[in-house]
């Protein structure tokens, strides 16, 4: 690639980065600006709305409930989907289409229809088991399936699951060890991405919780928005920031050692190329 062409490509990349950055950051900035406005036209900026978040017990409870739901849903999704997908891939490949269909099905069903179907179940659950908001994890587990299935499928496709598991089995590993110590560590980034998608879906979910009369984060924000728009916007910004920070943490600290070594190799190779180019 010529130097001129490389330069053009770099400029193009920077422009795309800036445009997309502005696309995402401008609305968030506007929300932050709105949440720090004082009362009255010339009132000074204030963090009162942000401070109010922690003084509104219902909101704090809703935040904690949503976080708990995010954790339960992510864990449940991984526990349900990962062994199923590995097992289907290894032992029942004929069922892969059926599993894919079932996992993608929730994407085609509107939330309102889902609620209409689930309402009697939840009524029964409220009477006989529990009316805790955490029972929403069941429906959220269904809701996140389409997103997480695709991510995990990509992760599984990137490794030779059959050969790796057969190699481990021939060395004396049981199925639990094969999954926990051989397959899962090699699809680590897919697991993190799937978990992150689950967290994002759960933190952003409004319709189902609202229709089933539970107060999760989004329902609380909506309710609060009617009484105090500043606080509701502050909570919305905070939840976006939370998701962003979570993404950063997962991508930087969740990398397996071999990938870190590979990236170090690539970096060293790039350094050598750069050194060669400079000489």
């Amino acid at each position, binding site marked *: 690639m010529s130097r001129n062409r490389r330069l053009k490509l770099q400029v193009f990349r920077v422009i795309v980065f800036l445009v997309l950055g502005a696309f995402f950051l401008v609305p968030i900035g506007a929300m932050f600006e709105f949440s720090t406005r004082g009362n009255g036209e010339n009132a000074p900026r204030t963090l009162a709305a942000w401070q109010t978040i922690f003084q509104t017990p219902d909101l704090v409870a809703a935040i904690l409930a949503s976080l708990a739901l995010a954790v339960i849903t992510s864990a449940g999704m991984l526990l349900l989907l990962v062994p199923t997908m590995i097992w289907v891939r290894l032992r029942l490949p004929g069922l892969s289409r059926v599993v894919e269909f079932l996992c993608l099905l929730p994407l085609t069903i509107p939330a309102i229809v889902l609620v209409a179907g689930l309402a009697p179940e939840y009524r029964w659950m409220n009477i006989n088991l529990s009316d805790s908001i955490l029972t929403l994890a069941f429906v959220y587990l269904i809701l996140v399936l389409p997103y997480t299935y695709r991510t995990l499928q990509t992760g599984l496709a990137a490794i030779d699951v059959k*050969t790796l598991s*057969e*190699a*481990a089995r*021939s060395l004396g*590993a049981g199925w639990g060890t094969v999954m926990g110590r051989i397959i899962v560590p090699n699809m680590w980034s897919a697991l993190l991405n799937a978990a992150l998608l689950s967290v994002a879906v759960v933190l952003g979910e409004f319709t189902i919780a609202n229709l089933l009369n539970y107060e999760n984060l989004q329902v609380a924000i909506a309710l609060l928005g009617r009484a105090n728009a500043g606080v509701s916007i502050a909570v919305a910004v905070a939840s976006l920031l939370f998701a962003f920070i979570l993404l950063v943490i997962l991508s930087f600290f969740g990398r397996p050692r*071999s990938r870190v070594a590979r990236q170090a*190799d690539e970096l060293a190779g790039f350094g050598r190329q750069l050194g060669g180019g400079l000489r």
Partner: protein
Amino acid sequence: MTTAVAAAGLGTATRAGVEVRLENLRRRYGAVTALDGLNLTMAPGELVALLGPSGCGKTTALRLVAGLEQADGGRVVVGGEDVTGQPTNKRDVGMVFQAYSLFPHMTAWQNVAFGLQMRKVDASQRRRRAGEMLELVGLSGFADRFAHQLSGGQQQRVALARALAIQPKVLLLDEPLSALDAKVRARLRDEIRRVQLEVGITTLFVTHDQEEALAIADRVGVMNSGRIEQLGPPTAIYSRPATPFVAEFVGLTNRLPGVVRSGSVEVRGASIPLVQPDAAEGPAVALVRPEAVTIASDGEAATGPLVGTVIATAFLGATSRVTVDLGDVSVLAQLPTSEASAYPAGTRVRLALRPDPVLIARDEAKAERA
């Protein structure tokens, strides 16, 4: 390296080879019969290569020994113990796969130590044994490398060390060299044989590469349609093939139409003795090795059924393969290169067929006559 390994105590740590018996093994996939009553007995410490075309059942046989698939019938007996119903992880087999199978998130050392960890070997012994195994395959300096930092050949050597580290009763090699380039393949083939002899483990080697099988094995089993057509030492397989399939699959063969008469086959005026002298008389195709064909230059005026024109010469190193067109059929002759150089393309030559016993094929003879 041998001395170093012996000094490290590997010789005493390894288990003596055991007898392995495959008795009447059968396996079907739907309508397809992969194994049709396969029988094979491997002596302790022996290396047997199963050779055959794709779909002949050789990999299925190996996977049944490993327990990666279940037989529809028959038994696998390892060291006197019937292991047919045992799951893979209880079978005590070491396996090297065709595809690179190192665990990508582990270093070479961790890969080799994995099987020992599964067997709950304590950490210090694990470290020592994994080190010995890497030394055995000549990779002690690569212990901390991940799979992607090793070449294909190195990865397969680590896989071999990993398979041997657990001191298995049987070593199973499923086309371990097929993903490597020719030079590395030849080197690693010799390396595998050296290690196998050093460790003394009973080994089943599956390949579709005849050169590989003939070079490495104590005995070669040529497979066809789920059965072993011939089992014997490499020299016997090559020089005394038992069936037309073996003759044609192992090495090159000229197919020359002829007529069987009183224990020999007459091919273009030459009489060649038969491997089966009691073969029924009538038309047949004689299967003649290129090494059994010699050439004499007779000048342009020469005539006769074995006179033809050289159309190509393939240089193979010490020998060359000369293709001679006899008009209705082409014949290959393998000669020392110094001799073959006397017959450039276009030369009129007379062929002679050495009277080594040959096999005949019948069905094809009828087809060709028709």
